[in-house]
């Protein structure tokens, strides 16, 4: 029987699942994911995690708990940094330790990914992580390449307008209709977790809007736009948020933007100010912040989103 390793369907799953799955699969492990977020998972997460933590990390706890009886190992890498001069979010730096502190967990695999130290160092860390599963460096290399190829295909699909959920489930997005385009800005683990976002993307499409999200823009576009700030941001995923919003504001390719952020999100609490100021400029598309936490009700969200879409439709006519 092969060893099973669990990947929670939360947080950076939405960013790197194909890479991780390809890599771990290539090492001969059987990858098991948790089901899509549901009420049970959310409730379990909210109960287990510290009250002050942001919603997506609470959701992550819930996914871990739903996996823990089913797997031999848990894969919770320490994703410190994915590019040379920026970090991810502090929460990702401490995530494996936070999960261990819950107690009574399967063994947590926490390889470090820290591109601030250069890609040579990253490959060294990858090899030393994989050592316990195979003695053959060539196999590690093939597994990693396999993951990287999968990841490339994944990103290309995202850039062509598929959402992460669509790519990962192999279901093509519905034909884009409507003459209104809405940009949805925010962390993919909020926007694309359909339970957490209360189906925001589908809902907007049903209201007749085309939807684009931050992860559909190529990294270099986002990077260039974000670097218009007087000081470079040191959080990669916030660069993606700021960069996509700036891009849409400047290019005018969307009619309005919805900025979904989790209550108590550290980086977003600061970014929000910069985005809102930029959106106040003449001619910029409207920006509506949508703050979510575990108490957000569906009714409230629907009302706000509908009002926003109505307002945009009214502007367009």
């Amino acid at each position: 029987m092969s060893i099973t390793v669990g990947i929670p369907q939360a947080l950076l799953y939405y960013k790197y699942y194909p890479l991780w799955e390809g890599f771990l699969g290539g090492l001969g492990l059987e990858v098991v994911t948790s089901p899509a977020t549901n009420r049970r998972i959310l409730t379990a997460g909210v109960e287990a995690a510290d009250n002050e933590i942001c919603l997506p990390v609470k959701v992550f706890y819930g996914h871990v708990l739903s996996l823990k009886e089913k797997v031999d190992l848990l894969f919770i890498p320490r994703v410190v940094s994915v590019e040379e001069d920026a970090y991810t979010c502090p929460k990702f730096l401490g995530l494996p330790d936070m999960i261990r502190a819950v107690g009574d967990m399967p063994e947590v695999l926490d390889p470090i990914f820290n591109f601030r130290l250069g890609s040579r160092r990253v490959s060294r860390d990858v090899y030393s992580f994989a050592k316990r599963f195979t003695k053959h460096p060539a196999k590690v290399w093939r597994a990693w390449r396999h993951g990287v190829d999968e990841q490339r295909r994944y990103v290309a699909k995202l850039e062509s307008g598929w959402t992460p959920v669509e790519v990962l489930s192999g279901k093509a997005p519905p034909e884009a209709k409507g003459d209104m385009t809405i940009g949805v800005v925010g962390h993919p683990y909020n926007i694309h977790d359909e339970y957490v976002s209360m189906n925001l993307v589908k809902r907007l499409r049903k209201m007749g809007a085309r939807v684009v999200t931050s992860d559909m823009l190529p990294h270099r576009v986002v990077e260039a736009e974000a670097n218009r700030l007087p000081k470079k941001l040191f959080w990669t995923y916030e660069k993606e948020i700021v960069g996509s919003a700036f891009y849409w504001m400047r290019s005018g390719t969307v009619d309005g933007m919805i900025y979904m952020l989790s209550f108590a999100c550290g980086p977003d609490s600061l970014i929000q100010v910069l985005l809102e100021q930029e959106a106040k400029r003449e001619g910029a598309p409207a920006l509506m912040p949508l703050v979510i936490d575990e108490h957000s009700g569906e009714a409230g969200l629907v009302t706000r989103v509908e009002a926003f879409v109505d307002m945009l439709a009214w502007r367009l006519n």
Partner: protein
Amino acid sequence: MPVTWPHLGNLEIVLKDLITAAGQPYILPPKNTARTLQLGLRHSPEFACLPLKITIGNFIEALEAGADTLIMAGGIGPCRFGYYAQVQRAILNDLGYDFEMIVLEPPAMGWKLFVDTLKRIAPGKSLWEIAKAIKLAFRKGRAIDAVEREVLKYRAYERKKGATTKAYRAALNVLDEALFEKDAIDEAKEEALGLVYGVEKDVDRPVLKMGIVGEFYLLLEPFVNFDVEEYLGHSGVSIERSVYVSDWISPGNNNIIGGISEEEIKRAAAPYLNHFVGGEGQATVGHTVIYAGHGFDGVMQLFPFTCMPDTIAKSILPRVGRDFDIPILSLVIDEQTGKAGLITRLEAFLDLLWSRRMQREKRLLSV
């Protein structure tokens, strides 16, 4: 062009000297009050961490008082502090204030930028003069911290309630007034320590030993922590604290004041939090482990609501508490926190610590 900077505990005593040595006039922001907080709340993003809100309040009040050059520290992340200045500038610009902001970024962002910024703060001074002034400032800063450390440790033993606080104020005054010269600072330090040591003590009194860990701003600024340290001292608690101003300003300097080196802290934290997470996250865990190992009665963690590094630490501390069998009280502070509620929780915690102490002593006597 009067310069200003936000309040942070005793930091202003050295900054006043430093800015004067740089040849600049300065205006201190008015003391932190409810108004400072209100202003900060009104103009800051809702779930930004508390230090951002209060320092915005400081800047607004200092600008009202006539300052026009704001000095702020920068940073390279991953905690939010490194981006504060950018957001503060945007908010204050939006409010229509006319000012210049000088952000002192750490050398890690480039030595040239660092040196250029120092020269903007001290126009016309040579690098050598600047370096000398900074060295002196650290000397004074460490003197202040050394005094504070003694105060925290021995307040619990004072015979006359309030005597230590009085001596502490006098000691700070001596240091504040000392000339900005090596010998003068050293002499002032002796005198200041003498004042604190001179407080009459009851050394036989049973006291609790508590470690205080957490986020630097909350630990160092009495306005936001309601001066819990004084309260604890008066309640018979001798304190050791993880962060001091001079340690915080010169990270990597092996924690001269706290007395515990960064290496040691990392090693102690590793089984529980095996990576830095920005801010004081890892230090909070590491210090707790060390304090627990030294047989302290309890540890208190203080940090602002939404603070990322210390929230991570809070999630992990219960495991440390279980392993070492030491009570840990995590206090999360936000703008709604009131002193009364805080004291109630502390009282309950102290009761717990005392009863554990009694039990332990009983056990020891019965064998």
